[in-house]
């Protein structure tokens, strides 16, 4: 497996994905540069989660090409287990292993996949638990943690494999509002440390503050993308404007009636500081 540093972390060309007769992705062209943080936003059913899952090949694309760190994922002969070692995935529902302690959640793949010894695996696991602020929870079982703690443990589990790319699939959507902040803080720190990240999210404040680029998807296509202040602050497309007004000012949607007649595009400074609004 050769990685070419000059190539983007993720390259997607003309990606299509159908579930039976339903076409979810209708020709996506997309890149994530090395060290870049990209947030993917869009209404539910827009295909953003499917796009993310295609990158890790949890969904098999119907057509198109995906490269991750220069390795073609869509090659039928790709050594998928080997490539996935370099990709961390964080799920909306955490998916910690409930029969293992937090520490063993972090060591099991290191030991079984990377063949690290117990001592080394535990040292790396504890270092990552410290990174996410869960040093004291090493011996707890997942069921004994709050949702926010579980998600941070899941992030630490991915980091223990020392990935080059982290994928986040709506990591805070299943959390109680007061627990969202802890997870986002961990993700922000990760971004500041230079991790390449692709984040599907409804957290507009996180996208605005942390993302290098925001991608807006709707109806299985990328509608527009660019720096967060442009896409979120001065969206060019009607659909983006309609989506943002619904997300940022949900109580007034009913009065709009037709989304096409969205009023003034919301200005970046007018974004509420606390915008955990979800669709």
């Amino acid at each position, binding site marked *: 497996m050769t990685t070419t540093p000059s190539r983007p972390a993720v390259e997607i060309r003309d990606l299509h994905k159908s579930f039976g007769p339903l076409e979810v992705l209708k020709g996506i062209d997309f890149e994530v540069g090395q060290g870049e943080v990209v947030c993917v936003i869009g209404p539910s059913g827009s295909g953003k989660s499917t796009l993310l899952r295609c990158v890790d090949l949890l969904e098999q694309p119907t057509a198109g090409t995906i490269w991750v760190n220069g390795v073609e994922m869509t090659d039928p002969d790709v050594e998928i287990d080997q490539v996935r070692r370099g990709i961390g995935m964080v*799920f909306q529902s955490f*998916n910690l*292993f*409930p*029969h293992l302690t937090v520490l063993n959640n972090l060591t099991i*793949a290191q030991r079984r*996949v990377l063949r690290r010894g117990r001592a080394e695996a535990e040292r790396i696991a504890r270092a990552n638990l410290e990174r996410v602020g869960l040093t004291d929870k090493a011996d707890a*079982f997942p*069921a*004994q943690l709050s949702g926010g703690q579980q998600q941070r443990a899941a992030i630490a589990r991915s980091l223990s494999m020392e990935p080059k790319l982290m994928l986040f699939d709506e990591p805070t959507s299943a959390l109680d509002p007061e627990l969202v902040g802890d997870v986002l803080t961990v993700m922000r720190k990760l971004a500041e440390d230079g991790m390449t990240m692709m984040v599907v999210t409804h957290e507009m404040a996180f996208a605005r503050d942390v993302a290098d680029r925001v991608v807006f998807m709707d109806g299985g296509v990328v509608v527009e993308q660019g720096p967060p202040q442009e896409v979120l602050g001065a969206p060019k497309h009607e659909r983006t404007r309609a989506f943002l007004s619904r997300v940022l000012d949900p109580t007034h949607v009913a009065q709009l009636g037709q989304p096409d007649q969205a009023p003034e595009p919301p200005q970046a400074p007018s974004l509420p500081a606390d915008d955990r609004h979800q669709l």
Partner: protein
Amino acid sequence: MKLRRRQRERLSLGIQYLIFIAVIAVVAFAADWGRLADAFFRVDIITSMFPTIITVALRNTVLYTLGAFAFGLVFGTILALMRLSRVAPYRWVATAYIELFRGLPALLVLFLVGYGIPIAFPEREIPGGVFGSIAIGLGLTAAAYMAETIRAGIQAVPKGQMEAARTLGMSHFTAMRTIVIPQAFRIVIPPLTNELILLTKDSSLAYVLGVTAQTIEITKFGRDMLNDRVNATPLLVAGLAYLVITLPLSQVVRRLELRYAKAR
């Protein structure tokens, strides 16, 4: 006269206790306890059954049960994985096997293993003699039942568990072995306990293979004594011997479930 609510409740409760006591009294006074004790509870016969019923009969029952359970568990897990396999012929074979062996009486299967295999392979022997024959004979049927239980357990583990394991770079096999199957077994502990208790009693079918004084188990031991003494006391003792196995077993499993409760 109209009763108040608490009075009505007290009356209802009182009637229920009265019925309970009445039934017990009828049984206690109407039954001929003297003749019953003579037929089912002769102390001299009870003492003559010890210690053999424990050292030989109970021991063999436990051994046959554990042998059949171990065989059924391993074979049942393989069948369950075959039923979930991507290879269609594996699915067909496993489904056909399960349907067939769930439908056949355990006695018939035991008979076929005990007498059919020696005829089919005259120069080979089933390892372990009578023990091996019983373990396989009862295990073949138990495997069919356990396969369905284990398959349901595997399918009850959320899909996200497999996905999370795979995204960490585990192969399908490693993810199954270290993540999915350990969780599936925690889910199926109660139904598997049921199977173990059923097997304990099915081990009484061992007599069809012609057991000797060394390989005798509880029921056969009780029946032999029954014929010998022309008295039903041995059957009562045999029945209690089964409870000596199954009641502590239920306790152990309850503990086990409690211990796993926090790791679910």
